[in-house]
Structure formats: structure tokens, C-alpha cells
């Protein structure tokens, strides 16, 4: 029994590692990072062959199959978590401020971010739209300082590619 569980555990662990690498690889592909995509792809395929051969050699052992499936699912989540921590790339924030747009803009500029203000019209009158391109890493820090100044600010974020120039915090 114990032997069964250790082998299922090993399969779980290997499969988790493999899918973590696979998830990272997909993120690298989407962001166009070829060297990292190659590296993650190599490791992923290497581990995968070991796992799949262990499974197929012993398909009657359901604990191994469960370990395989749990490893797959856990690997996805681990990969996503790591990617979020790394937070590669750039984000464009759109901040709609009904009341305190100017203050938010100058506060962000004081902290060294580049902000472009656009005057606009909302349901209850004039609003200000702020556009701010930042490193994805900075996003969370920026949100908290933003909401301190104007809790009513409406913020959306989207991934962008850097093309050229401007300044990044």
C-alpha cells in the first residue's frame, strides 16, 4: 500500500512540475519570449515522457492515474501563480475619476509615473480619464495609492506591448 502511494505521489509531483513548465511556456509564447519558451518546453517534454511511460506501464493502478490527474490540475494553478508573481510585461491603466482627477494625476506624477489626462463626460457631468502605462509589476502598488486619493475611481487594466519611448516608472 505504502509503495503504491509513494509511486502515485512521485507521479503527482512529476506531473505537477511538467504542467507548471507547460503553463509557463504558454505564457512565454504569448509574450513572444523565444529563449524561455524553448527552455520551458524542453523541461516539460522531458518530464512528460517519464511520467507517461510510468502510467502506461501500469494502467490498472488507479492511484497512479489519480496522481496523474491531480498533478495536472495542480500544475496549472502553480504555473498561473508563478506567472502572476513574475508579472512580466506592460499594462495600460485607464482610470476614470468623477471628482478628483487632477489630484490623482499629480499624485501619480509625483511618484514618477507618466500620466495622460483626457477630459470626458459621464452620467453626472464632467469626468477625467487618466491613461497610465506601467510595468505589470507596479500595478498592485499603484491601485492602493490610487484608491487612497479617490475611492470612486473606476480602473481597468489591459496588457499592452511596448513599442517605443516615453517613460516608465
Amino acid at each position, binding site marked *: 500500500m505504502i509503495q503504491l502511494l509513494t509511486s502515485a505521489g512521485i507521479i503527482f509531483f512529476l506531473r505537477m512540475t511538467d504542467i507548471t513548465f507547460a503553463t509557463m*511556456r*504558454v505564457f512565454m*509564447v*504569448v509574450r*513572444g519570449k*523565444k529563449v524561455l*519558451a*524553448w*527552455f*520551458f*518546453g*524542453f*523541461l*516539460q*517534454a*522531458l518530464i512528460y*515522457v*517519464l511520467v*507517461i*511511460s510510468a502510467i*502506461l506501464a501500469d494502467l490498472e493502478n488507479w492511484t497512479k492515474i489519480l496522481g496523474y490527474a491531480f498533478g495536472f490540475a495542480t500544475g496549472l494553478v502553480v504555473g498561473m501563480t508563478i506567472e502572476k508573481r513574475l508579472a512580466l510585461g*506592460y499594462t*495600460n491603466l485607464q482610470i476614470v475619476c468623477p471628482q478628483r482627477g487632477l489630484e490623482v*494625476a499629480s499624485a501619480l*506624477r509625483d511618484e514618477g509615473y*507618466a*500620466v*495622460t*489626462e*483626457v*477630459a470626458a463626460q459621464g452620467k453626472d457631468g464632467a469626468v477625467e480619464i487618466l*491613461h497610465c*502605462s506601467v510595468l505589470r509589476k507596479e500595478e498592485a502598488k499603484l491601485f492602493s495609492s490610487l484608491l487612497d486619493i479617490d475611492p470612486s475611481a473606476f480602473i481597468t487594466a*489591459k*496588457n*499592452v*506591448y*511596448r*513599442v*517605443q*519611448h*516615453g517613460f516608465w516608472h
Partner: protein
Amino acid sequence: MEILLSPQTWLSAGLIFSLRVTDMTLDTLRVLFVMRGRKAIAWILGFFQALVFVIAITSVLRDLTNPLNIIGYAAGFATGVVVGMTIEERLAIGHVQMRIISPRRGTGIAEKLREEGYAVTEVPARGKDGMVTMLNCSMLRKDIHKVQTMVNQVDQDAFITSEEIRPVRRGFWRA
């Protein structure tokens, strides 16, 4: 060690490598097409990818004593990913929206791009040192570099970002 010297093992490892390069090239292209909502192309790529994959994995599993097979398999996988990315970059399918922020020469950039046939929307805005112009211009992904060069001819210091978009309706696209 003698396994490494036999031409037979090198041949089978090389075969597995090239099968895996083909299959992962198709797979990477498929993922990038799925993200852009191209169903028909995704189906065709998925079909051939799975077909080649089954052949590759069975040839590896048939002879696990040959470490070259396993390495060929993994290296083929990784190389296929990069080949797929390169092809996708060349194809450059889809549309992007470029946002150009220029402190002084916004109108000049807009005129230049319009002369070349691109649709440009100008928005007056304010930056750190006073008024700026924000230009929104949607184009085919293929055209990014061409448009960037045109912008630079007018204003070297313009700030440019791009994002992928899906065309919804209307407006005009430069053919």
C-alpha cells in the same frame, strides 16, 4: 555506451526530433489561432498536430532504453515551439490598435498617417508638461513597423504602445 555509437539509434532519435518539431509547430500555431478566434484553421491544425503526436509518442515509448530518443523528443518539442512562434510572427495575422502620444507634433503625425491611408482619431489630452495629443490608430498587425517608421519621421519622441484588438464593425481599414 555502444548504443550511442549505433547509427540506428541516432536515426530514430532524429526521426522523433523532426516529428516533434512538426507537431509542436502546429500546436503553437493552433494556440495562437484559438486566441484570435479562428475556428476553422484551429481545427485543421489541431487534427494534424494530434496525428503527428500519436506517431511521435509511440515511437519514444517503444524504446525507452535509448536515451537519445527521449532527448530528441524533448529537444524537438522545444524547437517546435520556437519555430511555431517564428512562423506566427511572420504571418502577423490580426489587428492592433496603436496609441501614440506626442507632446508637440500630434497633428503632423495624424496628417502623415492619413495621407498614407490609415484612420486616425485625435484626442486632446494633458501630460506632465502641458497639452499633448493622443492618437488612436487601428491597423493590421503586419503594418506596425511601417507605421512606427512613419511616426518617427515626424516625431522621434512620440510614445507608442500597441494592443491586440478584434475589429467589431465599420470604420475603415487600410487594405
